[in-house]
């Protein structure tokens, strides 16, 4: 029946190509939207995973209490009555018992690697230029196992921080702001004591101003010493053998300590929410496309069948049974869907290649092009959706055509 199906479609080229165009257009839109959404999602996920581990253990924010503050301002013997009692948060978060965590993580078979970090705010300066930075002390050997930060090093390597010795890695934006370059010596101050000289051994560029303009990385021991707080840890990034365990592990570990333990999803609740909204949007879009494509196919076939009743009667009297008639029209719907989907996917890829080649005036990740996903799953989804719509939309009219008996048609026509 394929032969007759094709002949019938070719004999109405205009209608056929309009429907194919409609389906292609829908498929193309889906490919473009999904390509952009997934592209951005891949980019953001990578960015987030650079800075967020599978599980993050961090000191919980603690309120300042009046009791803690009193001895700082008054001596023991003074009786103090506050008019407004002081309230606020501690500026610095730290783990209660980092050593305990190290031991637990060391022994847990689901833990692939972990890396402690200690972060404080400070100011780097060179000559007259000063710039505030967020200084993170890392253990380079461990850090490299947990994140892909090393991939973003413009110059030098994180490994140069190993062993300490007043070395520092600065974000590309920081270097630019203070007019320094790798190899220079800058001064670092955290408000305690005199600024100290540090040699810049590398620069890092994440392609995200938020990070590149404030990042400073040093050896964790150096930074702890600089802050006069040896052994202090603000957070531990944990890489698990399986990222899907992150939620479960986080829930379990948070039972052991006052420290905050976050799985990847919790740490990025907003991101996950955005992904949810995107998924919903795409589902609605897909539904709309399916509806339009399906309706087009349904209409064309219904009209065609009502115009072709005589021929159905003839085919039946020649010996073409109901199933062959079903095949004839279902086949046309499927061919329309198939060609439309194929054409739409090609168009979509073309448009995405064009969009992806546009040079942007700003940077996204490592390049200045929009991130676009060409994941096979996008094309598979688009293809399946178009085909399913075609099958459903053509089945109804095709089925009703197969149910017509030659006699009904002949009588009706007379």
């Amino acid at each position: 029946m394929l032969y007759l199906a094709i002949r019938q479609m070719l004999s109405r080229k205009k209608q056929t190509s309009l429907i194919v165009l409609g389906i292609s257009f829908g498929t193309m839109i889906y490919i473009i939207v999904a390509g952009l959404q997934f592209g951005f999602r891949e980019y953001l996920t990578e960015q987030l995973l650079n800075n967020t581990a599978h599980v993050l253990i961090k000191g919980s924010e603690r309120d300042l209490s009046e009791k803690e503050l009193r001895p700082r301002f008054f001596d023991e013997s003074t009786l103090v009555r506050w008019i407004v009692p002081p309230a606020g948060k501690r500026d610095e978060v730290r783990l209660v018992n980092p050593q305990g965590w190290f031991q637990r993580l060391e022994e847990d078979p689901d833990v692939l690697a972990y890396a402690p970090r200690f972060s404080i705010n400070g100011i780097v300066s060179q000559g007259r230029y000063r710039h505030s930075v967020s200084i993170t002390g890392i253990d380079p050997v461990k850090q490299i196992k947990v994140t892909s930060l090393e991939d973003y090093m413009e110059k030098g390597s994180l490994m140069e921080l190993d062993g300490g010795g007043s070395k520092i890695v600065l974000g590309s934006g920081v270097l630019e702001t203070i007019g320094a370059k790798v190899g220079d010596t800058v001064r670092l101050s955290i408000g305690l004591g005199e600024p100290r000289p540090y040699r810049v051994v590398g620069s890092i560029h994440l392609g995200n101003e938020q990070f590149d303009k404030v990042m400073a990385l040093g050896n964790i021991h150096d930074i702890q010493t600089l802050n006069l707080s040896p052994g202090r840890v603000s957070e531990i990034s944990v890489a698990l053998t399986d990222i899907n365990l992150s939620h479960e592990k986080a829930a379990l570990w948070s039972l052991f300590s006052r420290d905050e333990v976050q799985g990847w999803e919790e740490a990025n609740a907003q991101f996950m929410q955005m992904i949810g909204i995107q998924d919903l949007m795409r589902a609605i879009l897909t539904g709309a496309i399916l509806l339009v494509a399906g309706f087009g196919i349904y209409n064309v076939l219904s009209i065609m069948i009502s115009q072709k009743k005589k021929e159905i009667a003839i085919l039946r009297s020649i010996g073409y049974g109901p199933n062959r008639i079903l095949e004839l029209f279902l086949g046309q719907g499927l061919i329309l869907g198939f060609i439309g989907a194929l054409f739409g996917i090609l168009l979509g890829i073309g448009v995405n290649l064009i969009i992806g080649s546009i040079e942007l005036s700003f940077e996204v990740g490592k390049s200045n092009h929009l991130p676009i996903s060409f994941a096979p799953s996008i094309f598979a989804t688009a293809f399946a959706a178009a085909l399913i719509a075609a099958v459903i939309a053509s089945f109804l009219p095709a089925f009703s055509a197969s149910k017509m008996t030659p006699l009904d048609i002949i009588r009706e026509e007379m």
Partner: protein
Amino acid sequence: MGIVGKNVVKQFGSPPMVILHGLDLEIEDGEFVSISGRSGSGKSTLLYLLSTLDNPSDGVIEIDGVSPQKMTVNELHRFRNEKIGFIFQFHYLLPELTGLENVLLGPRNLGLEKQKKDEALALLDQLEVYKQANKFPSEMSGGEQQRVAIARALILSPKYLFADEPTGNLDSVSGNKVMSILEETSQNNNMTIVLVTHERDYAARANREIYLVDGRISENYS
């Protein structure tokens, strides 16, 4: 074997209106029978019953020894494909197919379109529409279309040929041609032919005439 009808009743609608009133008839293999009568006398209704396209309200019809009512859908279509040829008043060629392709529709359904191609061309030649083999129906005259349709009915040498007013839409020259073809086919191929026509002259050219008056077979031709 042939075609046998016993007490064939056909009624339509509710309250039922009886169109055929318990007909008994027998058409033998190789016979050329015409069914004639006034408009509305039930000619077409009877033809559809005899040709497996419809089932009687009461009574039995057997064609080639079997009752179409007892066949499955697939058996029925296979039977039509192999043993029956139809010619209708309106030619009903498929407009997307050429004359030759239309003729080969039946063989194609059996996977025989290649084997039957030469035969189809010979048949078209015999019916004087060889030139129309590669034309589309829209490029043919009514008489030519009807002859291509006849070729389509004959291509598989069916045992039974049913024709409902095949000359109805044609001028007398074309009509005569069609009648000659039917006569020749009947003589040369030993085909059983049932022809419905309201033209007395054509009806008379059959071996036997069945004359219907208000759904009953009349012995008296007036």
